[in-house]
């Protein structure tokens, strides 16, 4: 599976890069912001995008809206440290899977798989309320 991680915290991306390098099932790429993520998506095939919420410029919500419009088949995972935000309710309806920092690699891995499956089943759909 090809995964794109988006976060404005370079240490977080570095940690993920180290940790996922040995993985045989994942191919990973990394973007420091939403704009960079959309650039990467132009010429890099990706299955699932894992994004932070609060970032300078375009934030996670903006990114997901753009993904739904231009890359509807991608799985969308939000990985955020925010416990409350005015935009969260909106963002929750756009993401396939919502994860709170800190989470284990196992939880992240499960979430990514679920998002991938959800996107494959309902390519343009949003997460059904449950």
């Amino acid at each position, binding site marked *: 599976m090809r995964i794109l991680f988006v976060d404005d915290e370079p240490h977080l991306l570095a*940690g993920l890069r*180290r940790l996922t390098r040995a993985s045989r099932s994942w191919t990973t790429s990394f973007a420091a912001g939403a704009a960079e993520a959309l650039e990467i998506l132009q010429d890099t095939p990706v299955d699932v995008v894992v994004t932070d919420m609060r970032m300078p410029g375009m934030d996670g919500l903006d990114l997901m809206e753009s993904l739904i419009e231009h890359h509807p088949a991608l799985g969308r995972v939000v990985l955020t*440290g925010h416990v409350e935000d005015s935009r969260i309710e909106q963002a929750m309806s756009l993401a396939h899977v919502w994860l709170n920092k*800190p989470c284990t690699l196992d939880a992240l891995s499960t979430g990514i798989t679920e998002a991938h499956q959800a996107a494959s089943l309902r390519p343009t759909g949003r997460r059904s309320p449950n």
Partner: protein
Amino acid sequence: MSGVPPLADPARYVGDVDTGGLRPLLAALPVIVLAFDAEGTCVLSEGGLLESFGIRPGEDVGRSLGMFFPRFPAAVHAVQRALTGETVYSRSASTGATLDVQWHPQCDVDGAVVGVLALGTKTAEADRYDSAARTEQTYRALLSAIPDQLVRLDADGTAVAIKPANDGTSLQLPVRWSPTPLVDLVTDDVAERLSTAAAAVIADQSERVVEAVITDATSHRYLEARLIPEGGERVLGFVREITGRRRAEDELREASKLEALGRLSAGVAHEINTPIQFVAHNVEFMRNSFATMHELLLAYRQALHSTQSLPWAERSARLQQAEAEHDVEFLLGEVPEAVNDTLVGIQRVSTIVTALKQFSHPSSDELQPNDVNVALRNAVIVSVNEHKLVADVAEDLAPLPPVLCNPGELTQVFLNLIVNAAQAVESMIVERGERGRIELSTRLDGDHVVVRIRDDGPGISYADQSRLFDAFFTTKVVGKGTGQGLTLARSIIVDRHGGTMEVHSVPGHGATFEVRLPVAGASPALVDAAAVDTPGAP
């Protein structure tokens, strides 16, 4: 006894000078002059004011008190009392005009009362409620209506009680009815502050408020003395206990700090959760790396201790293959980085937790020597999530001597100013298309520390600047501000630390808040000796 010379026979006296013109003179004066003999018979009735009471001069001469009564109801009683030797004041307002009359007993050379001389004058409007008869009664009523203890302070450092506090249980200065040196009433430092403030009141004749803490074995209680110039070298002190008010203020400050913490907690949680996430990734990576290294170590041991007679080249080739399989070059480069990043994450969490702890530490009354730079940095740290996306924060902090202060309260003030600055630049970020700038600086200026917090936001209109520190004044939308932040901030700086707080802003060109703190702090005995506005002062 009155100073009016006795008139044993006023009628004859007036008669004697009548030809000399005393009667026309009296008729020209706005007075009423009456005289009565020892039996209460009217012997003189003259004066320009008689006409306005419908009485002709001389009309009542020869009449007894009973005859006199209808026109001057107060007269009967007044004459009777004056005949006992007492000077009497009366007032009658029967005909619209108000007449004040002084009834003076007249004595012969042996001191026996032989008559009464009465002088009536029209009461001036302003004087209406302040006649001699009423002054003392009013004065007593006013005094008893004031709940405070009242003392008079003299320039020589003595105090004398005027009245004790109405509420017998509240704290007051010891009540002494004769002038007593202040140092015999209160501790030396409180006495010193009171007499210094009293001297200042005498010097510029303007009011001052002194607060003092009175400490005994079990409690701190607070006293407020409002010192009012009484004229000359004397000062009136209204003394009241303000322990309840001080406690309420302390609780409000504490509650407001907790409220600030609550509002920041979501952002603070993010600042803790993110490093914990990457620390966890790195530790997991190191665990995996150690397992890989362990496998590699086993391969080396096997090569070293192998009983097979392999040529060295063969052993070396196997090890090189094992290293390549286990991605050793990557691990050698990345494990130290992972360790560093882990330490960075732990440091970040520890910094924010330390700042939070210092900030939320309950305030004590005692000011302690502390580094104002640390208080300022703590405010930057706990508010990082409020400003990191909207502004670059530049710090220009000079080395400072320890300042006698309450660091948690100062952090609260700085936090308030930094969050305000962040909201100010955030309001322009779309229009400007880039982040704003918040500049923090500290300087030592003589015996004061100066902290400036500047933003390049939209600035503050001149109209708003004048109301900025007013309670409940806010320009923020509902939910963003209650209008109490700056009021409380100023109270912390001015009342608690003896400092000042000012704003400088040219609309359109950002705003600078300047906090000045005395290095020596506010004296614990005198929390506030600032001159207060007196009514009518500009």
